[in-house]
C-alpha cells in the first residue's frame, strides 16, 4: 500500500469486499465500489443525480488540517480515495448549488449525499470563483487615458492600467473578487462614501503604505472610484450572470489534497517538492514552502505523516539587516495594530537539486557587506568584466541559502548578483541560474560542492544584444545610449522568471513591463565574455502578429525549447524561436520586434471585463510551468498556468483548457507549480503536482482570520471512480 499511496492511510482493507457489497446494496443500480480507506456514494438533489459537483472530505483529527476533494461522474457517483484513518466532515459543493449540510463519515462506509439546489442565482454565485465577480469591475474606458493624476504611471494607457490591477499590482498579492474584497467589512468603520471606504481600506495594516502607493500608480482618485462603484453595485445586489461551467471530462478525474501549514499570519511564495529536471527525486518526501515578507521560516510538510515543521533561515551573522517598517497608516480590520510580519531574509523562490537539497533565494546580507570576490580587482572572471559594487551596480538583494535534509542544516551561498526566481540547468555541472538588477547569474554547483568556494563557483553577465550584427560579443553601449554600428548594446532588463532550455544551451527569462517580453541568452563558451542576448517583446500594436497581448510574469521552457509565459492581457503565450523568419541580430535587435511570428497566444478561460477593454479575460495568471515528465497525467510537456483569480490551475492540453479548480476553501492562489513522481509504477497514485496557497492574505480566504495557508497536491485519476 505504501507504494501505491501514502502509508498510514490504510484503513480496514480486509473489509473492502464486504464494504463494497454494502455500498452496492445502498446505492442500488448505482453501485460505487470502495475500499476500506475510501468514502464513496452517489450525490443526488431534488433534480436527480448531480454530475460534475465536488465532494469535500475534511478532518481536523490528523496532526494538521486535511482536506480531500473529488468530483462526481456523469451519474453523480464519487469516490474519495485512500483517506487517512479519521472522522471526516463531508459535504457537496457545486455550481447551481449551495453547500449541503456537513455529514460525519468514516472511510470504508458508503455515503450517499444530498445536494442542495441554490434558492436563487445570487446564492449560487457565492461559490463562483473570484474572477467571475471581478468581471463586474468596470475598467476605465480607453478614452479616459492617460489618467491625469500625479504619479499615475500605470494610467498611461488602459493596457498598463490592466497590467497594474492584474499581475503587477493588486492581484500579485490579492485574489480580487473574493468575498473579502468584493465587500466592505463593517469592521473597517463607517464612511461618508464608498470612495472614502476604499481609500481607508487600501491604507490598512503594515503593508498599507505599499497598497496605497499602488493605488497612486493607477491614478488614486480614478481607481478608488472604480473599486467603489464595483462594491456598491455588488452591495446593491448585482452578481455575475454568467455561471462557471461545472467540471467536465478529465476535470472530473481530479483528486485534490490539502494540508494546513504554517501560522495563519505567514504567507508563502514558492513551494517545491522535487527536482524539476527529474521529478523522481525525493519520492514521498517532504514539501518545502518559503515565506516571503511574513517570516524567516522554511516550512516543511510531511505528506506521509500529515504534519509540518519549520526551520529558521539564517543570514550572515555580521550583516546589519534592516527589518521592514514598524508602524502602519491605519489598523488592519483583521489584525488591528499587530505587526504580523516579522522577517529580514525575504525569501522568494526555491528549487530542489539532484541531491534533494533545497535552494532558496533569501537575503543574507546587505549591499555594504558585499564579498571582495565580487568587486573590481577580484580574480573572478565575471568581476573582471563586470565588477559589482561600483557605478551603482547593486550587490544587495537576495543570495542563496541551501537546506540539506540529511544534515538538517542550512548553508549560505553568497552571490554577487541578486537572486530571485531560480532554476537548474541540465548540464553535468548542475548549474543554477537566477539574477536581478540587470544581471543574469549562475553558480556551478559541482565546483561549489568540490571547493566550497562560492567566489570561485559563480559568475554573472549583463544582457547584451548583438546590435552590430557580427555574431559575437563586442564592446557595448548602455541602455540609454543610441545604437552604435561598431558596438553591441546592453539592455537593462532583468530576468523575472528564469529557465534554462532543455533543448539547447540557452537560458530564457521573462521581463516585466509593458508590453514586456522574453529574453533568450546564449552563454557561449566563456559566459562572462561571450554571453549574448536576444529580446522578444510580446506583440502589442504589432500588425504582423497573429494576436496582441502584454506584460508577462512567470515563464518556463518546455522540452522542445518553446518558451511559455503568462500575460496580464489574459493569455498564456508561447514563443517558438524556430518560427522566426528573419535575422535575429542587427541594429534594431534591442527593440525586440524581430520575431512577432514566434508568438502564439491562448486566451485563458473565464469571463472578461465588461465593455471594450484590452484584456482578454479577468483571470490573473502569476506563473506557469510545463509538465515535461507528465507528472500529472495529462501528457508530457503540457503547459500549466496558475489561475490566481479563478482559484485553479489551468492546463492547456492539445489547445484546450482543462481547469483544475480548487472549490474549497474558496481563494486558492498559487505562485509556483511543480511535479513529483513518487513511484513511476504506481499509476496515478504515484504522481501529481505540488503547489501551495500563496496569496499574502490567508485571512481573506474562505475560513477567514485564523485559517492558515495550505500545501496542495493535484492528482489525475483515469476516471472519477478510481480508488
Amino acid at each position, binding site marked *: 500500500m505504501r507504494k501505491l499511496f501514502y502509508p498510514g492511510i490504510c484503513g480496514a482493507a480486509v473489509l473492502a469486499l464486504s464494504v463494497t457489497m454494502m455500498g452496492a446494496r445502498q446505492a442500488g443500480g448505482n453501485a460505487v465500489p470502495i475500499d476500506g480507506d475510501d468514502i464513496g456514494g452517489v450525490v443526488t438533489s431534488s433534480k436527480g443525480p448531480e454530475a460534475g459537483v465536488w465532494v469535500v472530505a475534511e478532518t481536523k483529527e490528523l496532526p494538521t488540517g486535511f482536506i480531500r476533494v473529488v468530483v462526481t461522474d456523469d451519474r453523480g457517483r464519487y469516490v474519495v480515495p485512500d483517506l487517512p484513518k479519521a472522522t471526516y466532515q463531508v459535504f457537496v459543493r457545486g455550481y447551481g448549488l449551495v453547500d449541503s449540510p456537513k455529514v460525519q463519515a468514516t472511510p470504508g462506509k458508503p455515503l450517499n449525499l444530498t445536494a442542495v439546489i441554490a434558492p436563487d442565482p445570487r446564492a449560487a454565485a457565492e461559490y463562483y470563483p473570484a474572477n467571475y465577480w471581478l468581471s463586474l469591475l468596470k475598467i476605465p474606458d480607453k478614452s479616459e487615458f492617460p489618467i491625469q493624476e*500625479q*504619479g499615475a*504611471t500605470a494610467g498611461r494607457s488602459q493596457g498598463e492600467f490592466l497590467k497594474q490591477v492584474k499581475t*503587477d499590482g493588486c492581484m*500579485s498579492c490579492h485574489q480580487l473578487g473574493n468575498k473579502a474584497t468584493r465587500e466592505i467589512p463593517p469592521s473597517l468603520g463607517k464612511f461618508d462614501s464608498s470612495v472614502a471606504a476604499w481609500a481607508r481600506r487600501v491604507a490598512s495594516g*503594515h*503593508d498599507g*503604505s*505599499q497598497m*496605497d*502607493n*499602488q493605488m*497612486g*500608480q493607477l491614478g*488614486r482618485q480614478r481607481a478608488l472610484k472604480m473599486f467603489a462603484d464595483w462594491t456598491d453595485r455588488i452591495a446593491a445586489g448585482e452578481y455575475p450572470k454568467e455561471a462557471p461551467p461545472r467540471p467536465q471530462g478529465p476535470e472530473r478525474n481530479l483528486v485534490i489534497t490539502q494540508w494546513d501549514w504554517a501560522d495563519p499570519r505567514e504567507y508563502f511564495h514558492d513551494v517545491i517538492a522535487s527536482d524539476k529536471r527529474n521529478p523522481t527525486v525525493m519520492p514521498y518526501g517532504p514539501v518545502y514552502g518559503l515565506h*516571503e*515578507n511574513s517570516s524567516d521560516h522554511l516550512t516543511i510538510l510531511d505528506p506521509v505523516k500529515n504534519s509540518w515543521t519549520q526551520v529558521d533561515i539564517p543570514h550572515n551573522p555580521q550583516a*546589519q*539587516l*534592516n*527589518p*521592514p*517598517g*514598524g*508602524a*502602519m*497608516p491605519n489598523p488592519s480590520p483583521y489584525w488591528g495594530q499587530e505587526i504580523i510580519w516579522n522577517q529580514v531574509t*525575504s525569501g*522568494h523562490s526555491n528549487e530542489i537539486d539532484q541531491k534533494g537539497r533545497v535552494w532558496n533565494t533569501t*537575503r543574507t546580507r*546587505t*549591499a555594504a557587506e558585499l564579498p571582495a570576490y565580487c568587486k573590481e580587482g577580484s580574480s573572478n572572471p565575471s568581476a573582471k568584466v563586470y565588477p559589482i559594487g561600483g557605478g*551603482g551596480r*547593486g550587490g*544587495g*538583494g*537576495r543570495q542563496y541559502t541551501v537546506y540539506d535534509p540529511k544534515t538538517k542544516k542550512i548553508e549560505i551561498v553568497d552571490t554577487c548578483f541578486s537572486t*530571485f526566481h531560480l532554476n537548474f540547468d541540465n548540464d553535468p555541472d548542475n548549474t543554477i541560474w537566477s539574477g536581478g*538588477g*540587470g544581471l543574469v547569474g549562475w553558480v556551478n554547483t559541482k565546483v561549489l560542492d568540490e571547493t566550497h568556494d562560492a567566489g570561485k563557483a559563480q559568475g554573472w553577465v549583463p544582457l547584451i544584444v548583438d546590435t552590430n550584427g557580427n555574431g559575437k560579443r563586442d564592446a557595448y553601449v*548602455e*541602455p*540609454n545610449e543610441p545604437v552604435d554600428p561598431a558596438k553591441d548594446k546592453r*539592455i*537593462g*532588463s*532583468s530576468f*523575472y522568471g528564469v529557465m534554462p532550455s532543455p533543448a539547447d544551451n540557452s537560458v530564457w527569462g521573462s*521581463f*516585466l*513591463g*509593458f*508590453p514586456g*517580453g522574453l529574453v533568450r541568452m546564449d552563454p557561449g563558451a566563456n559566459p562572462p565574455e561571450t554571453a549574448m542576448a536576444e*529580446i522578444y*517583446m510580446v506583440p502589442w500594436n504589432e500588425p504582423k502578429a497573429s494576436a496582441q497581448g502584454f506584460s508577462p510574469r512567470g515563464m518556463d521552457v518546455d522540452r522542445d525549447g518553446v518558451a511559455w509565459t503568462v500575460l496580464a492581457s489574459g493569455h498564456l503565450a508561447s514563443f517558438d524561436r524556430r518560427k522566426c523568419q528573419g535575422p535575429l541580430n542587427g541594429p534594431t535587435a*534591442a*527593440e*525586440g*520586434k524581430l520575431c512577432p511570428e514566434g508568438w502564439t497566444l491562448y486566451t485563458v478561460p473565464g469571463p472578461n471585463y465588461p465593455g471594450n477593454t484590452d484584456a482578454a479575460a479577468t483571470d490573473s495568471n502569476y506563473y506557469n510551468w510545463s509538465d515535461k515528465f507528465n507528472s500529472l497525467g495529462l501528457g508530457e510537456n503540457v503547459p500549466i498556468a496558475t489561475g490566481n483569480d479563478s482559484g485553479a490551475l489551468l492546463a492547456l492540453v492539445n489547445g484546450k483548457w482543462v481547469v483544475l479548480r480548487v472549490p474549497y476553501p474558496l481563494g486558492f492562489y498559487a505562485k509556483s507549480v511543480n511535479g513529483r513522481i513518487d513511484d513511476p509504477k504506481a499509476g496515478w497514485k504515484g504522481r501529481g503536482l505540488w503547489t501551495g496557497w500563496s496569496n499574502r492574505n490567508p485571512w481573506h480566504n474562505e475560513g477567514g482570520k485564523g485559517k492558515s495557508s495550505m500545501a496542495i497536491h493535484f492528482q489525475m485519476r483515469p476516471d472519477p471512480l478510481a480508488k
Partner: protein
Amino acid sequence: MLVLVTVCLTAGVIARQATAKGDPEAAKMKNPIAATPESIAAGQKQYQTLCAGCHGKDAKGGITISVIEDRGGNQPPDLTDEKWDHGSSDGEIFTVVKKGIGPDFFMAPWDGRVSDEEIWNMVNYIKSLSRQK
C-alpha cells in the same frame, strides 16, 4: 546611500538610468519648521508609518520590495549615509517626498496624503539620522 534611481522605458526595453543630480529650484526652498526635538519626534512617527515599509525601521534601506524588484528597479536606499542623489538640502528632500521620483515612481508622491508640515517634520527626522552618524 541615498540613491534614488529612475528607470525609464525606452523602445519597449527597460533601461536603467541613474540620476545623480539635485533640484536647484527645490534647493531654494526654506524649511519653515525648525528641527526641534518635537518636530523630529513627529517626523519619526510619520516616517515609521509611511516610509519604514520600504526604507526600513532604521532607515538603512535594503528592504526587498517586490513591486520594485519585479520591475528591475533598485531597492530603497539608505537614508542615513552621506549620499543624496537627488539633493541633500531640506527643500530637495521635501520635494522628493512630496512629488516622488518619476518616471516610474517607485518613490511615490505623498502630496495630498500628508500635509506639508508633516513632510517637513519627516525631513527634519531624516536629516537628523545622518547627523547622528
